[in-house]
């Protein structure tokens, strides 16, 4: 168990270190940063001034080491555009992105779990096939477009929900629905296959033989065992959702981390872009690490391998 833990932690740390390097390299892709920061109308003197002011005149390895050193202590420097500390900018907006992710995940689970269970109970039937087509439909839905369509229908025509902004919990419903669409197919398929495996197992036959009610067999015995992989995939999906929130936050003008990332990308605000990439990657790594550990605790068989 301990060895498993240590190995898993080491991989997570290495992933974070890789992303750290990657995030730094990402902003250096375009060649001279100073030119992009100074803007299209800058003179050579302006560019030189920017270069010195932001420390871009020093050798690249030195810039990298300095950035890593400060990032390790949670200091991502000053935003070029917002003229504020990047860490403060991000932490001010993180709650909104998390709220959106949780709303999205809850909606996705509320749809995917019942559909997956029904699908498994009627494996091979028309219902099963219809539900799998629903999953394919969800997979094909362009999220930004679905967002706009909901704004027109639920927002403008029916007037049920506010169209954009962050004022109340109602502002999170539409973006949450859109975000949920991206996670439903994977969660649904996994619930279905987990339930099918569980229903075919020996302990279910025993439960049937004992004469337990169908309801108790499905919900108490099978669903519990099918839940485990779903929990870990749900964690992974939450990670993807936080990363994917950039599109949805932009569509709905929700001022979370995704919106911040979008703004900083369009304003060439590199310290913020680097920090958000790193942060989202680390959150994802943490979530998957947590899911793996949870699985190891719940299922002793996994620890051995």
């Amino acid at each position, binding site marked *: 168990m301990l060895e498993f833990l240590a190995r898993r932690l080491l991989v997570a740390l290495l*992933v974070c270190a890789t992303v750290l390097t990657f995030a730094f390299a990402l902003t250096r892709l375009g060649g001279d940063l100073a030119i992009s920061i100074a803007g299209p109308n800058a003179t050579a003197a302006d560019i030189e001034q920017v270069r010195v002011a932001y420390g871009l005149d020093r050798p690249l390895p030195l810039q990298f080491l300095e950035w890593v050193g400060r990032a390790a202590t949670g200091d991502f420097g000053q935003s070029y555009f917002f003229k504020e500390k990047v860490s403060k900018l991000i932490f001010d907006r993180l709650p909104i992105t998390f709220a959106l992710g949780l709303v999205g995940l809850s909606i996705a689970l509320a749809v995917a779990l019942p559909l997956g269970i029904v699908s498994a109970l009627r494996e091979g039937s028309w219902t099963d096939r219809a539900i799998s087509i629903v999953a394919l439909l969800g997979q094909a839905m362009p999220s930004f477009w679905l967002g*706009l369509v909901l704004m027109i229908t639920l927002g403008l025509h029916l007037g049920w929900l506010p169209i954009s902004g962050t004022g109340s919990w109602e502002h999170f419903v539409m973006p949450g629905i859109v975000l949920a669409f991206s996670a439903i197919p994977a969660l649904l398929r996994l619930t279905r296959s987990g339930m099918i495996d569980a229903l075919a197992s020996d302990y279910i036959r025993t439960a049937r033989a004992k004469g337990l009610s169908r309801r108790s067999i499905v919900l108490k015995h099978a669903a519990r065992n099918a839940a485990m992989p779903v929990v870990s995939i749900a964690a992974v999906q939450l990670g993807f959702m936080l990363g994917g929130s950039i599109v949805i936050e932009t569509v709905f003008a929700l001022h979370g981390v995704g919106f911040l990332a979008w703004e900083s990308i369009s304003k060439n605000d590199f310290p913020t*872009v680097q920090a958000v990439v790193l942060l989202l990657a680390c959150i994802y790594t943490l979530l998957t690490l947590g899911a793996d550990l949870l699985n190891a605790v719940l299922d002793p068989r996994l620890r051995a391998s």
Partner: protein
Amino acid sequence: MKALRDIGLASGAAIVGAAVLVAVFAPLLVPHDPFAQDLSRRLLPPFWMEGAREGHLLGTDQLGRDYLSRLLYGARISMLIGIATTVASGLIGIALGVAGGFFGGRIDDAVLFAITARLSIPLILVALAVVSVVGSSLTVVVMTLGLLLWDRFAVVARVSTMQVRNLDFVAAAWAAGCSRSRIVLREILPNILSPLAVVATLEVALAILLEAALSFLGLGVPPPLPSWGLMIAEGKDYMFFSPWVIMIPGVALFVLVFGINLLGDGLRNLLRTGRVA
């Protein structure tokens, strides 16, 4: 049940086939030049609405460009991006996956680590940042997505290679004195192609959706190219009064991606039931 599956596969194939034909023959099919602006004919509605004009079946956009012509050219961009990206990401992913699965040991650890690291990187955010730093063009979008979307190819190629590696015909090839590269290229690759074909269809669909999202955010295919994502972005300001400007390209995008997914799903079922070896 089986009949329904076949319907799914057939309709998927029909949608994809139609999109390929439209993409290839777009210049012959369009009624107007998709780039020609006519400000006296701005935002004309499509044929089923009042005020439609003859000659503009799907109306015109905010610059008076014929919407049907732009939609047909848009199929070109989507198919081009989908296929080119999948070829690029397929080459990377299959190379990595086969290497990991074939050699095992340290090499496999490195491949697994690369997959884990890639999955942790937020896809859209990084793609947007790269396009923004390097500058937007069709080639940049294809290269960026190609470099990011190889993970599923790698996962499937790795597992399939491991399954095939120890089978008798590979052992026979070793015994016959075949070289390592011959075994990989002639014995292993042909036998893992079918699961990879399923991955490829899913990746084409994903690449098309991602391109549309990037173009929608203004960092994908540059205007005036008629990418469907870009058409939705350009129509966004008018959508509350003329919803069809975003409905038409959105439905096209949705139907194409749905068709590709149906095709992929159908292929996977065929493989599982063993009707295609």
